[in-house]
């Protein structure tokens, strides 16, 4: 089936003339129109633009240029917080429902230069704040595996679209687990790179010191290819790393002999569903069979990660979202009587409840008299968490555990309980606080719902994380599975 092919197979078929990029694009657009009414994984589609890009790709495919463009002509989707010139960029918010970006994000530019065909913009939690995709102004995304369940968030649209093979790959962003958690809950592979690897220019900021874009696709090998096109130094982002981009696919086939995997005891304790634990163990066994060894370790400050995160991230977001003021772009209330009214009603109407909650928390923790007790203390906790990892990486190469303590929960289950919702990111948040790369890999199913194995590596170890993922995926077919109903239309 065409839609079950990975990026490498599409590239080969496009070059062999089995189908054109236009045909491939039409194929996926058809799948979207067939299946997405239920999933709601897209906010905006751009079929005409996509077909024009595909036609241009077909012309290029016939030339020598195609040899250095492995992703040329392959469709994909962007999370709707990457600014796309001339196309609505909503960040899942009513506030930006009318915002047409006048410029392209660096990642958008890079994937366009790679010749990829953008089909549209995927749904997400409002301003990337959420773990279930229920905070989107455009309605929740549904999990293809069981549509009464959430896909995870905030990159839930990208995860669901890839899981249902409405696109062969998509971009996501990860501030506290927003790539890895939905990847786990939807049964695909998602990678959050080392902070600074992928430019943040043109990514609508949630929490600047934590945000990082990354690839989402069925397999680790796909993620390696997509990341290759996304990563690289960008002079427009001052936190971008001036470092040569390695060949992320170079070590995919290297055996795992001698790779030490650390298992923090804190990641296997209270709150972890037994079905998830079983599948994680099963996946780890396969890695051991492939040559890796397991080492028990401890990350003693793990419990502090969620509270520290929910100070730092809201603090930054409260400031980042101040520009949404109804003055220059985005939602403006009707007939403001004065400036204060303009601000209060524009923001009151434009932002959803979760965004308002975080703006209020962030404003509070930065206020005079509270700054030291909250913000500065959280920054010190952040340092402790970095120290935990630094110490661990003297003993092991990567750290493994579940991506999420549970499988996908039902829509509405946690929507009224923010603290329980926040705890669903308990295993993913520490990597953001430390700026480390992390990957979520399909690790089978518990009661018919996908389970994710998370690996966190040292700085710049994306190649190794992808290698472990690829080696696992040589021993398993979890990443190749998709729900029955999405196989119907070929």
């Amino acid at each position, binding site marked *: 089936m065409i839609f079950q092919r990975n990026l490498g197979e599409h590239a080969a078929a496009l070059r062999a003339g089995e189908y054109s990029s236009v045909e491939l694009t039409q194929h996926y657009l058809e799948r979207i129109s067939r299946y997405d009414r239920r999933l709601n994984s897209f906010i905006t589609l751009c079929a005409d633009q996509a077909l024009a890009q595909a036609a241009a790709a077909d012309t290029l495919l016939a030339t020598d240029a195609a040899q250095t463009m492995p992703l040329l002509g392959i469709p994909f989707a962007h999370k709707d917080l990457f600014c796309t010139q001339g196309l609505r960029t909503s960040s899942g918010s009513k506030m930006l429902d009318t915002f047409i970006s*006048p410029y392209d994000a660096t990642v958008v530019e890079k994937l366009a230069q790679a010749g990829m065909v953008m089909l549209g913009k995927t749904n997400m939690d409002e301003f990337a704040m959420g773990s279930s995709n229920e905070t989107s102004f455009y309605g929740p995304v549904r999990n293809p595996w069981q549509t009464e369940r959430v896909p995870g968030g905030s990159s839930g649209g990208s995860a669901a679209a890839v899981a249902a093979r409405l696109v062969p790959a998509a971009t996501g962003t990860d501030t506290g687990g927003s790539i890895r958690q939905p990847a786990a809950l939807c049964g695909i592979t998602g990678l959050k790179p080392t902070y600074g690897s992928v430019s943040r220019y043109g990514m609508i900021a949630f929490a600047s010191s934590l945000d990082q874009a990354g690839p989402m696709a069925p397999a680790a090998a796909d993620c390696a290819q997509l990341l290759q096109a996304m990563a690289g130094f960008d002079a427009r982002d001052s936190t971008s790393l001036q470092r040569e981009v390695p060949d992320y696919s170079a070590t995919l086939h290297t055996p795992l002999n001698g790779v030490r995997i650390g298992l923090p005891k804190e990641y296997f304790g209270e709150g972890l569903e037994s079905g998830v634990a079983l599948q994680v163990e099963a996946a780890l066994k396969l890695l051991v069979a492939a040559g890796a060894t397991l080492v028990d370790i401890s990350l003693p400050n793990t419990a502090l990660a969620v509270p520290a995160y929910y100070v730092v991230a809201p603090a930054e977001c409260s400031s980042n979202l101040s520009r949404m003021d109804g003055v220059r772009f985005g939602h403006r209330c009707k007939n403001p009587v004065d400036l204060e009214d303009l601000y209060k009603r524009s923001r009151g109407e434009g932002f959803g409840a979760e965004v308002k909650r975080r703006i209020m928390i962030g404003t509070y923790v930065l206020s005079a008299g509270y700054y030291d007790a909250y913000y500065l203390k959280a920054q010190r906790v952040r340092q402790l968490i970095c120290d935990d990892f630094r110490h661990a990486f003297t003993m092991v190469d990567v750290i493994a555990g579940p991506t999420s303590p549970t499988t996908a929960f039902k829509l509405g289950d946690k929507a009224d309980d923010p603290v329980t919702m926040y705890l669903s990111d308990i295993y993913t948040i520490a990597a953001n606080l430390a700026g480390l790369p992390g990957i979520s890999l399909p690790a089978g199913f518990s009661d018919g719902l996908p389970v994710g194995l998370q690996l966190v590596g040292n700085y710049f170890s994306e190649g190794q994380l992808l290698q472990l993922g690829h080696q696992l995926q040589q021993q398993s077919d979890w990443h190749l599975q998709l729900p029955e109903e999405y196989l119907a239309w070929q």
Partner: protein
Amino acid sequence: MAVTAWEVVIGCEIHVQLATQSKIFSGAATAFGAAPNTQACAVDLGLPGVLPVLNGEAVRLAVKFGLAIDAHIEPHAVFARKNYFYPDLPKGYQISQLERPIVGAGHVDILLEEGVRKRIGITRAHLEEDAGKSLHEDFHGMTGIDLNRAGTPLLEIVSEPDLRSAAEAAAYMRKIHQLVRYLGISDGNMQEGSFRCDANVSVRPLGQAELGTRAEIKNINSFRFVEQAVNYEVERQIALLESGGRVVQETRLYDPDRGETRSMRSKEEANDYRYFPDPDLLPLAIDANFIEAVRATLPELPEARCQRFIQELGLLEYDANTLTASRPLADYFEAVCAAAKCDAKLCANWVMGTLSAALNRDAISVESSPVSAEALAELLRRIADHTISGKIAKQVFDLMWQGEGRADAIIADRGLQQITDNSALEAMIATTIDAYPQQRDEYRAGKEKLFGFFVGQVMKQTKGQANPALVNEILTIKLKG
């Protein structure tokens, strides 16, 4: 309690617009006077997703200032967000500095009227971006926003509360203005807002250690206004205290038309700016190599230049101070000296006197003087070599100012050279004496005052071109008979 004397305490915050080509965090141009919103790019507009990138030139100019005031340069300067909502502040926060400003403690010396030097401490100087402008006229009840100025680099220079009078505050403001112009880090244009001062003013009973409650007077854009505003504010505060009232901490505005300060907002209404380090900008690492490279570009500073003028050129301190008040004037003076190769005092007198008077009269800056330093030097050489007298030289200067040409050409064309031919002068003087026999006889009879009468007659005859020393000499001999 009757207080006999009050002490005035003033500290200043001066905002200096740095002379960079582009903005502090974007590539947009900083030129003044463009059509609204034509010099604001996506970053200046604060669009979703944009990020700031620090302009290295702004850093260089700030470090240059730091070195000139002998300050500590922070090796890990931190940028912070100052959060508040206003329509001309596109991001809802201003990127500024709170902890670890780029320039730490330093100092400048100001010269007081009695010729006394006073050292004024500078607490810090930090980099920040300017906001845009709100335009309240011409929009029929709406407000227009021009974001051309948004993101323009500013250096905010904060003084210690070391100033003790309005005159000292004005002298300090002049000093900083002189310094930034010398350093070439700002055009210092006060009409265009490139240089503006906030003054924190308080009073306390003389001898009291703790400071009084202060009021901050915002956005003063002239040396004259700072003096007027502080004087008004001091009198207001003293009157308030002496009548049993108390000063409230607040922000005030100076209205130059009415000559008074007015309350703008009280401390209670002040914003909580929720400063925190800007996560979009990493701490700025400034190493010793960079600092030394900037140091190598420092020009001779006004104090050093003034001392050199006194010691090497033999000028009086007052003259040296006047000539070094601005770099263009000092440059002009030095160019005159170099080209004229004559007495520096003569050069100084002409630059401070005739030239400055003409510049002031026609409101022309020394940089665009119609008489160049070389041209003036040529004229001064002709005084020095006695081709013309100082009096004739002023006529020649006026012609040069009107664009009539160079000094030598004017002197030659109009025959203005001094008469130095002895025999011609002797003959003419003899004729003149004979023409006034009565005065000659009275002089010879002892009325020596009449000598001046004869000098005047000779000068009249020669249209002032006779060498005065020669005229004296010949007249003395001839009148004796």
